[in-house]
């Protein structure tokens, strides 16, 4: 096996690749190449992340003091709403699938493009349309309903730009549906010869499960938002309690999508982790089939638990019990994944490059997030925790500690493939550690303050909670630094980074068998890949074995 340094010394930057194919602006804006579309997404979601992150910074600044003196109430409400809406609909949902997934799925299964390249581009523009609506909301003064848009506040009482906000989420939703549709068809129909279902990388399995959720869940929230929008325009509608409308109905329809959506936000990340752990342990994944099917199980069971957001909403006790029971069950497939990743390390040959640091970070943080999810799934405990900072901490642990970590992990892992350049490894490791430390400092105190009773969406809070909030803000500062580092060294590597070579990590998988960056049609067209071995066929070379 060769080391990274060796690989790079011998590497040359390929003359012909998808980046160099054509250089005009139009060649980017009208491209149907999945790799270029992935790059467009990457740039756009990074901007949205910075925007959402700036709102997070405002939230944390405001919460330094209990008095609510930096922002007035209305402004604060708009800030956390936009933070949530942007982070969820415009960053986290498209994060891994639309960028890394879009780029890699055709490469991983050995085909030239996604099944519907033009629909892929359309999906990007729908996303952009949604983002434009989000910006319109911002420019016209914001929206203050919370990302959950609960009626009747959103439909009748809010004085803000609810209509544009629903349109923003609507457009982003259809973008997400089309991406999922494209993935499923591609995975079913375009696999290279020999690429059977059980030879597929787990990353692809994870995206398959994700896509199912996108197709079957998103349309429901879409129509719900349409109903909300018509109710706003018309002044009367089906959620209006004055004419017998049921506010809880809105919550059902909203969470029918939005709970499964949290798995849209974690499954692709889990796929990334499966790839990275195997590569840096140089082992086949432990329990391949279990990990593969647990993705599907999460997607399917995940559809049956949405009512756990509504234990105190006034839904029936019986419904609450049913939802709670299934919520406990949905933990099991996640458990299977965690245990198998851990077991993969057994008898491996482990190295700690930046992606692996992020992967370890993911494991620790996702565990905390997932396990606190169990506390929330428990009805007895959730009555106390609901709508407190405990919930805020839970979902940041799974979304930021889980998915954002996984996204960064994947980005570091495949950056050489996507751009053909290496970033600075040391800086990568430092940023991984900074993010981990900063993250815990930010959100660990929130569990406590939530248990003590601090409600969420409060910018005026009781004085006894100030110390924990100050800690949290301090942590957020470190966390922000951790994110700014990659924002510097990634772009830098584009110009100054050493050529990566085809396979800098000596990893397995079809994507590593083509050049970095790959040519427009992914592989040498005369010589399309044929698969003859299982996934992750890593071998630990005997001479590295110890003397015993």
């Amino acid at each position, binding site marked *: 096996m060769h080391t990274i340094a060796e690989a790079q010394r011998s590497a040359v930057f390929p003359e012909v690749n998808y980046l160099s194919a054509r250089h005009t602006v139009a060649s980017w804006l009208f491209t149907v190449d999945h790799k270029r579309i992935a790059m467009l997404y990457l740039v756009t979601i990074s901007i949205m992340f910075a925007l959402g992150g700036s709102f997070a910074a405002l939230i944390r600044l405001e919460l330094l003091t209990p008095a609510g003196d930096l922002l007035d109430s209305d402004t604060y409400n708009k800030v956390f709403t936009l933070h949530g809406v942007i982070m969820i609909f415009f960053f986290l949902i498209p994060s891994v699938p639309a960028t890394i997934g879009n780029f890699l799925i055709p490469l991983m299964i050995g*085909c*030239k*493009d996604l*099944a*519907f*390249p033009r*629909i892929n581009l359309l999906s990007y523009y729908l996303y952009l349309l949604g983002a434009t609506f989000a910006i319109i909301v911002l420019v016209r003064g914001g929206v203050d309903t919370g990302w959950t848009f609960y009626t009747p506040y959103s439909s009748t009482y809010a004085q803000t730009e609810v209509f544009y906000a629903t349109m923003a989420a609507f457009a982003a939703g259809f973008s997400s*549906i089309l991406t*999922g*549709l*494209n993935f*499923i*068809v*591609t995975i*079913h*129909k*375009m696999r290279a010869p020999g690429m059977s279902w059980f030879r597929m990388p787990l990353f692809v399995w994870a995206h398959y499960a994700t896509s199912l959720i996108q*197709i*079957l*869940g*998103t*349309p*429901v929230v*879409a*129509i*719900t938002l*349409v*109903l909300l929008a*018509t*109710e706003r325009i*018309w*002044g*009367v*509608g*089906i959620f*209006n309690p*004055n*004419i*017998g*409308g*049921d506010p809880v*109905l809105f919550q*059902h*329809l909203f969470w*029918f999508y939005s709970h499964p959506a949290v798995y849209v936000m974690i499954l692709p990340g889990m796929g990334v982790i499966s790839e990275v752990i195997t590569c840096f342990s140089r082992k086949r994944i432990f329990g391949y089939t279990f990990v593969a099917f647990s993705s599907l199980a999460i997607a399917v069971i995940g559809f049956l638990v949405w009512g756990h957001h509504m234990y105190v909403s006034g839904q029936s006790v019986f419904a609450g019990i049913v939802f709670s029971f299934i919520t406990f069950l949905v933990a099991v497939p996640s458990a299977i994944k965690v245990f198998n990743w851990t077991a993969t390390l057994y008898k491996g040959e482990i190295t700690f490059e930046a992606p692996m640091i992020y992967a370890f970070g993911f494991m620790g943080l996702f565990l905390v997030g997932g396990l606190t999810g169990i506390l929330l799934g428990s009805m007895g405990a959730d009555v106390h925790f609901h709508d407190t900072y405990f919930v805020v901490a839970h979902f940041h642990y799974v979304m930021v500690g889980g998915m954002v970590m996984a996204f960064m992990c994947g980005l570091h892992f495949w950056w050489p493939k996507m751009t053909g350049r290496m970033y600075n490894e040391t800086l990568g490791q430092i940023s991984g550690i900074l993010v981990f430390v900063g993250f815990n400092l930010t959100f660990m105190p929130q569990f406590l303050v939530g248990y003590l009773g601090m409600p969420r969406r409060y910018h005026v809070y009781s004085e006894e909670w100030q110390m924990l909030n100050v800690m949290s803000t301090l942590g957020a500062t470190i966390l922000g630094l951790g994110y700014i580092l990659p924002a510097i060294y990634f772009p830098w590597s584009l110009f100054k980074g050493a050529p990566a070579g085809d396979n800098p990590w000596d990893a397995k998988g079809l994507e590593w068998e083509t050049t970095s960056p790959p040519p427009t*049609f992914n592989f040498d067209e005369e010589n399309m890949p044929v698969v003859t071995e299982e996934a992750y066929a890593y071998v630990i070379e005997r001479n590295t074995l110890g003397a015993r």
Partner: protein
Amino acid sequence: MAHASDSLVAHHFEDIDQQNESAVLGMWLFLAQEILFFGGLFAAYFVYRVKYPDAWAAASSELDIYLGGFNTVVLLVSSFTMAVSVNAAQTGKQQRLMMGMLVTLALGLTFVVVKFFEYKAKWDHGMIPGSGFVYHSTTGDYFAGVNPDQIQLFFCLYFVMTGMHALHMIIGAGLLLWLLALGYNGHFGPHRFMKVELFGFYWHFVDIVWVFLFPMLYLIDRSWMLQG
């Protein structure tokens, strides 16, 4: 089979079969999405029907069963003519294909126009949800005592459901125009009919939605009509 039409295969596909199967699967995934999209509306409908059965029956009786029935016939026939068009495309019967699509288009537009008159009648009777909503019962005292608010709720759903459906019809009509233009230029042949076939799926799907909307909106309880 693939040999005859290699030029029709996009670069990233291996052969025509792979391309066609992908298209069919893709269309069905899109329709699965549509099922859930309308599903949200139907879920709301069921919830309120369970909550307010009397108001639902009373409000339903205010809809014009003749126009609704007529439109059902129109849509069913249009589905048939569309199916025939697909058959014609597959078997290369150019003229029948064009005729079939034209008739389908005409029927589709008829549906929308009739729908427009139904809406207008509701408008004239003040049965449009909003502050001016009034409920004048035309069912005698068969449904006496229902809550007018709940009637209004029904009409909110009625307009959103049929409106969404009509929007799909209008989009369908647009697509048909496009197909007709393609057909006019000799685009279709026995090796090249996927667009027609996929559009057929869409059209039939819209038909299915109506198949549910008609009994659920118009036919909840009509026994009062027999009592004079």
